[in-house]
């Protein structure tokens, strides 16, 4: 079986290093927090102004003043800090945040990403994604390999409006793990029971398997 959302999150959690600051986007990236190996010290940044974000609160302990960037109620860990939005993006721009994990609609073989707008259909906005991808040292994308119609989301070039250019280093999909460098997707690992043929068939961008 290919990876489900939890499988993708678990695989990405293996990429997270001890003693780092990490920003998690909405969706699958949020799940990564649940699978960070025991004993590792990782500080989660939420761009609305938290370092040291903790898990969801117990029922009855929700605090309307304490939410994450996905507007979900959360808690704070010991040693956390709160700051304003200008400082939050200041630390992102100054590359103090070590790793950014976010979702995407499309990723290209040269590391471009689209994830904020489908012209004429959906315009939600870029939120903090453009700031994050323009500045982060290391960015991992978590997404499905194909869209609902079965079209590849790993492309020669993005067809949707861009969020950022030449910025994505790694993509983890339901089918496997891919590094992006030198204008190609490099297959790093196949998800369980996924064949090389399937990945080749479902990857529209340049794919190197060695």
């Amino acid at each position, binding site marked *: 079986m290919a990876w489900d959302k939890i499988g993708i999150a678990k695989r990405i959690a293996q990429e997270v290093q001890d003693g780092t600051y990490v920003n998690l986007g909405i969706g699958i990236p949020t799940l990564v927090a649940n699978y960070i190996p025991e004993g590792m010290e990782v500080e989660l940044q939420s761009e609305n*102004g938290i370092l040291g974000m903790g898990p969801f609160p117990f029922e009855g302990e929700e605090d*309307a003043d304490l939410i994450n960037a996905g507007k979900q109620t959360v808690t704070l860990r010991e040693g956390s800090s709160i700051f304003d939005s200008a400082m939050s993006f200041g630390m992102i721009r100054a590359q103090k945040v070590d790793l950014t994990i976010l979702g995407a609609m499309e990723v290209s073989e040269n590391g471009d990403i689209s994830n904020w707008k489908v012209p004429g259909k959906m315009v939600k*906005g*870029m939120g903090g994604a*453009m700031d994050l991808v323009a500045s982060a040292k290391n960015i991992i994308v978590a997404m499905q390999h194909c869209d609902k119609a079965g079209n590849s989301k790993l492309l020669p070039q993005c067809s949707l409006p861009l969020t950022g250019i030449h910025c994505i280093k790694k993509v983890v999909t339901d089918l496997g793990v891919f590094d992006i460098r030198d204008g190609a997707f490099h297959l790093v690992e196949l998800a369980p029971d996924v064949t090389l043929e399937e990945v080749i068939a479902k990857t529209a961008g340049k794919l190197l398997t060695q």
Partner: protein
Amino acid sequence: MGFNKVRASAAEACEGITSGMTLMVGGFGLCGIPENCITELVKMGVKDLTCISNNAGVDDFGLGFLLQKKQVKKMISSYVGENAEFERQMLSGELEVELIPQGTLATRCMAAGYGMPVVYTPAGVGTEVAEGKEVREFKGKKYLMEEAFDADFALVKAWKGDAMGNLVFRSTARNFNPMMAMAGKITIVEVEELVPLGALDPDHIHTPGIYVHRIFQGVNYEKRIEQRTVRQRI
């Protein structure tokens, strides 16, 4: 006489806001929004507003109230999902929308409060956000020139404040409020608790009162939660 910043109500505090003005509105989602000021704007019936705010509220709360009454001409925001009426007005062309990166929004407020006309940020380089903007390269990396905002009024929500306008925010309800407080030509702050002078430790003040022109104690805070997420007790 003197500084005379304290107002008795939202109605008194919002005096002078008129149709066609540009307003900054603090908050992230529904967290830390100036609920009393928004309610007052609906009562005042001012129209053709340009609102600079990270989000646009939801259909029946926050800035969504102003959208329902068609009081907003233009929104400048970073993320506008979760609001069906907003989407309808945007797609039909009734509402002008400028979407900008969240950090750019925060920093353009900050620039205004720091007296700087522009900032350079890499966010949006190579995307449609860069259209029509100056691109400059520093140390091999490209940046967009972004201008400081120019807002007639900033509407801000703080947790505690005093008669000098010194402010303390609570938790993530801080978000855009401090930099918007610094950026308004006239800054109106509503607080949950207006405390006596001397009650706030000067070392713990987030926004010094020099940026605040009017302050009042808000009432009936609903503090609606947009995404209530919990975990089970084991």
